[in-house]
């Protein structure tokens, strides 16, 4: 009802602004795109692939100059959605839409949409650590590996190889999973398992 009584912008003006019609020069300069085809092809019509071909924008300019796109796969669930990472000078600047991926068609759930967070998260461990007298202390990699392997060898010498249990991962690459199994074989125990069990 009442809403229809708003002042209408004067016809022909570029930018309407409610009470007064202003022409913001900054706004007027902006490039207005004929986005129709591009938009629908990506967002709406993954199912109606006929539109995909027309995904051409009129005056597209890149936001990040000289960036390259790296294709990878989301690390959350087994659907295996594609991710296009925009990398500029070795920094992952933006997560782009992997619209070509045959399974996901650019789609993500909330976890995958924030995949970049895995790399930029402040909560990531920054260096090797160990607990000393109940306090976390930093180590160098050399120290850590030396201490761990020394202890492993000691335990192996005292209790045999089956004193070690190895929980591998479904979150590493297939190659790494293979190495984990191979490691257990070389270590000499079948005490190895991963999340597929549960």
């Amino acid at each position, binding site marked *: 009802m009442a*809403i229809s009584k708003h002042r209408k912008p004067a016809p022909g003006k570029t930018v309407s602004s409610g009470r007064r019609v202003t022409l913001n020069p900054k706004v007027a300069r*902006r490039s207005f795109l004929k986005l129709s085809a591009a938009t629908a092809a990506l*967002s*709406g019509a993954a*199912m109606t692939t006929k539109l995909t071909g027309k995904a051409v924008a009129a*005056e*597209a300019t890149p936001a990040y100059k000289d960036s390259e796109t790296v294709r990878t796969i989301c690390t959350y669930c087994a659907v295996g959605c594609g991710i296009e990472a925009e990398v500029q000078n070795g920094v992952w600047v*933006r997560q782009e*839409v992997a619209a070509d991926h045959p399974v996901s068609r650019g*789609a993500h759930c909330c976890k995958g949409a924030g995949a970049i967070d895995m790399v930029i998260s402040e909560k990531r461990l920054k260096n090797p650590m160990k607990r000393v007298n109940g306090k976390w202390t930093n180590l160098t990699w050399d120290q850590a590996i030396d201490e761990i392997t020394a202890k492993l060898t000691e335990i192996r010498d005292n209790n045999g190889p089956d004193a070690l249990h190895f929980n591998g991962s479904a979150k590493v690459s297939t190659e790494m999973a293979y190495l984990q199994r191979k490691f257990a074989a070389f270590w000499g125990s079948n005490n190895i398992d991963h999340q597929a069990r549960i």
Partner: protein
Amino acid sequence: MARMRFLCDTERCIDCSGCVVACKEGNHVPVGINRRRVITMKQGEPGEKSLSIACMHCSDAPCIAVCPVDAIYQRDDGIVLVDKKTCIGCGYCFMACPFGAPQFPKGNVFGARGAMDKCTFCAGGPEENFGKEETQLYGQNRIAEGKVPLCASMCATKALLAGDGSVVADVYRDRVFKRGSGVNAWGWSKAYDKS
């Protein structure tokens, strides 16, 4: 001229919040500010429906009408944007908006609201394209890049459609025909008084 539109297909929306995080992560929106959110009606009951809501970029936007400082403006392609440097954070737009789109981060003075923040249709703001200022204040400007807003392009089930209104309508119409279940876009029964 293309007229930018959002449409959320409630038959498709699965409440995964992909759009919400895509928006936040892409535009570095602070925690607590929801440019887009998913709401669920009749949770856990038959007839449960979810709907992704953000600024709908109304043709005759009430926020523009009530803004006392004309901080909100509409581009030719229908995208409604706010100039954060002009905005005084009075909150009138929030009261006028039927969708709860305007968001207000806490300002520095007396806990008063800071400048309004809302969905930009990934079209940045009035500052220079891709400039530092634009990115900081508004996030990405994907429209200037010829790209679709993040939320819609990352929608898990393609429930959220964004783009030229006529194309969005075509896509949706096509779906409705294929479904054979009639028009069930959110609000249609209301709009045509079929409730």
